[in-house]
């Protein structure tokens, strides 16, 4: 037996030496199978995680949400705000060896703008056309000033594709994408794995240390964690807040976290409620509901206090958070008084649409019991996501629990939800003053002025309550101690440049 153990140890040592000399592979566990890997057509959060390994953008963000150049070198906005001149990084190559230059940048932006079924079109809607200034400079001519544009270019709308490959593949480009990122696409087996290998001609290749990356979708959070613990994976995303204790206790694992750019909130149906319930008819009733909720209690009870409570579309540490409008503490007496003032007799029945899932169901139940104390009868209606979405569109609900993954620029967290007639304004809120504030924030570039516009909006939202912002989730990534150099950014993406595997 002893001999056998000795032999086994020797064999294990030999194997590990062999592995050290062989290729290093980073295996990443994803919570879902990504959609198509075409920057123009992609639309999921999980897809964005994969893109950051192989598809560089004109700009990126840093930990403090500053916009920094990636495939660009610098940018300059014209004085009238109607043009953006971008200088490009020289000597960059796409995975197929094609050069990245002004021609390619123009092609990529135009593909985002005009390709049939492009999901980037609305993000770049302010762009009228793209001009080539010189071989390494492009000029985006705008229809009207649009300050969030630079932030759009830090995401998929700023991803550059090899014109040659994109022209050849057409709408099948996503099956074999060719970009200019640190890794290049090798193969994908649906729902099983996506494989990338190091790109030898990457512009920043001196900071790329791992040879291969394999993404594996594993839907069940427990199993994802089990794989990390058993050594089958090196890094996993979306660890449950309730598992954090266990992960932190494990000396072979490390946690990297950041508070998300998005939020979890409840949309209140104001303009589309066919039943014309009290919630839709009176801001006082909506305020009463808000006052009935103890946000910190939800955080403590359901998420072990790991999330951050909030009351605006950005979290309290965000540069655009309005400190003049802090979270109002729970006040059941005042809530009851407001209901009385509004002339409604409790219990106020509310059709509460909640998408299925552990991270929505439990907080919904806590909210239900809190609201009951103030005189609300929240009737939780658990609904599968796609069905709920359709009902939200048609206004078939009174309160809708909905999460938003968040965008770098506050415009991405507000405009589509709060502007009258915007695609995701499910509650049909219509307030001309709010619309004006939202539009103004798009026109000016000075952060102080933008913040002032958003303050007007935040005040209106706090009075009118079209959306109750509740909390901001913590992005939780866990990885083995073998992986070095990992830092979490608030956008949730997994950046692989600079990572080392021991």
């Amino acid at each position, binding site marked *: 037996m002893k001999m056998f153990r000795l032999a086994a140890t020797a064999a294990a040592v030999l194997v590990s030496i062999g592995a050290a000399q062989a290729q290093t592979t980073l295996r990443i566990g994803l919570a879902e*199978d990504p*959609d*198509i890997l*075409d920057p123009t*057509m992609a*639309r*999921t*959060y999980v897809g964005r995680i994969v893109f950051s390994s192989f598809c560089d953008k004109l700009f990126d963000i840093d930990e403090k949400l500053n916009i920094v150049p990636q495939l660009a070198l610098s940018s300059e906005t014209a004085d009238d705000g109607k043009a953006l001149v971008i200088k490009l990084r020289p000597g960059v190559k796409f995975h197929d060896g094609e050069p990245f230059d002004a021609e390619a940048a123009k092609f990529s932006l135009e593909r985002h703008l005009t390709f*049939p*079924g*492009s*999901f980037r*079109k*609305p*993000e770049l809607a302010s762009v009228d056309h793209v001009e080539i200034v010189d071989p390494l400079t492009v000029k985006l001519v705008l229809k009207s000033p649009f300050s969030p544009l630079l932030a759009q270019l830090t995401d998929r709308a700023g991803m550059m594709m090899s014109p040659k490959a994109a022209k050849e593949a057409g*709408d*099948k480009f*996503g*099956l074999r994408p060719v970009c200019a990122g640190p890794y290049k696409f090798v193969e994908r*087996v*649906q*729902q*099983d*794995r996506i494989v990338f290998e190091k790109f030898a001609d990457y512009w920043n290749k001196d900071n790329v240390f791992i040879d291969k990356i394999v993404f*594996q*979708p*594993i*839907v*069940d959070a*427990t*199993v994802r964690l*089990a*794989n990390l*613990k*058993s*050594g*089958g994976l090196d890094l996993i995303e979306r660890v449950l807040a309730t598992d954090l204790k266990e992960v932190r206790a494990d000396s072979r694992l490390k946690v990297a976290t950041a508070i998300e750019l998005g939020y979890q909130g409840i949309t209140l149906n104001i303009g589309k409620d066919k039943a014309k319930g009290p919630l839709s008819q009176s801001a006082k009733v909506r305020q009463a509901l808000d006052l009935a909720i103890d946000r910190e209690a939800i955080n403590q009870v359901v998420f072990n206090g790991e999330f951050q409570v909030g009351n605006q579309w950005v979290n309290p540490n965000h540069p655009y958070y309005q400190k003049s409008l802090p979270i109002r503490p729970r006040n059941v007496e005042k809530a009851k008084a407001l209901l009385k003032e509004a002339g409604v007799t409790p219990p106020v029945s509310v059709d509460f649409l909640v998408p299925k899932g552990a991270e929505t169901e439990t907080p919904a139940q806590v909210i239900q019991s809190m609201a009951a104390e103030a005189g609300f009868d929240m009737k939780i209606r658990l609904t*599968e*996501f*796609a*069905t709920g*979405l*359709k*009902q939200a*569109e048609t206004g078939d609900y009174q309160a809708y629990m909905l999460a*938003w*993954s968040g965008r770098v620029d506050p415009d991405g967290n507000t405009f*589509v939800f709060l502007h009258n007639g915007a*695609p*995701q304004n499910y509650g049909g809120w219509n307030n001309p003053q709010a619309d004006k504030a939202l539009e103004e924030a798009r026109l000016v570039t000075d952060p102080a002025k933008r913040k002032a516009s958003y303050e007007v909006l935040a005040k209106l939202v706090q009075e009118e309550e079209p959306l109750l912002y509740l909390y901001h989730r913590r992005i939780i990534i866990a990885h083995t101690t073998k992986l070095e150099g990992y830092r979490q950014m608030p956008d949730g993406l997994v950046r692989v440049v600079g990572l080392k595997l021991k």
Partner: protein
Amino acid sequence: MLNFLARRLVQIVPTLFFVSVLIFSLQQLLPGDPALVMAGEERDPAVIEQIRRQYRLDQPVPVQYAYWIKGVLSGDFGESLRNKMPVRELIAQKLPVTLQLGSMAILIALLIGIPAGIVAAVKKGSAWDYGANLFALWGISTPNFWLGIMLIFLFSIELGWLPASGYVPLTENWRASLAVTIMPAFVLGNAIAAILMRHTRSAMLQVLESDYVRTARAKGLLERTVILKHAMRNALTPVITLGALELGTLLSGAVLTEQIFSIPGFGKLIVDAVFNRDYAVVQGVVLVTATVYITLNLVADIAYILVNPRLRG
């Protein structure tokens, strides 16, 4: 025999047609809008309109059906709304996975279920019988997902013997392939073994009390010969059908197990497709599943005839 086969084969055509109409019309009843789901977080009305046009979602259902069935007849199952992959390719990727997992599960079920059933019947009322019954009760009442996670904890995390999840094709590395599929196959097989055991036991009990077995015993045949040669053959006929049907169920019914072990099989493909309202994928997969199911049924009938000469008319 040939006559029978021909008759059965002819019956398949209308059945499949009926199935195809059923899948197509039923999924139209699903609430939710595929274009809306596909748009994810990017919900621009113009883009959504464009998707509807591109995938003919704006056309009447019968027209959509006509386009689809025309494609299917020429071997084109359409493409996935979600990722643009041809459905035929998706099926070709997943079917071998599911067949491997299903066959292993059935093999495990047969290896456990039939011997246990026979022993339980022959030693009726003994400790063996109670033991086998206990096992069956456990197998039927243990939820797949629980057993799966427990196995992962034991064999992957504690002992480190087997990979926790994932899939390796048999053709790529058969050892690794067996290592990743053995746990899920056991989880699936375990439940079926329990069912097979119960059926084998009751069929055996019935047969063992029949006249011809008594005669065989009276002839002075060895008990082993009586059981294995005379009784078992008859008792197994219903069990064969059951096994084939269970294999058919595994094609799309192994969803939970596939989910836990992250096996990219048919079950996972179809569930994801339903939630994403990826109609082309749902239609293609259900049609193929139905075809395989019907074929398995046919095979079971043929096997039936082979073990039971009285049916060879």
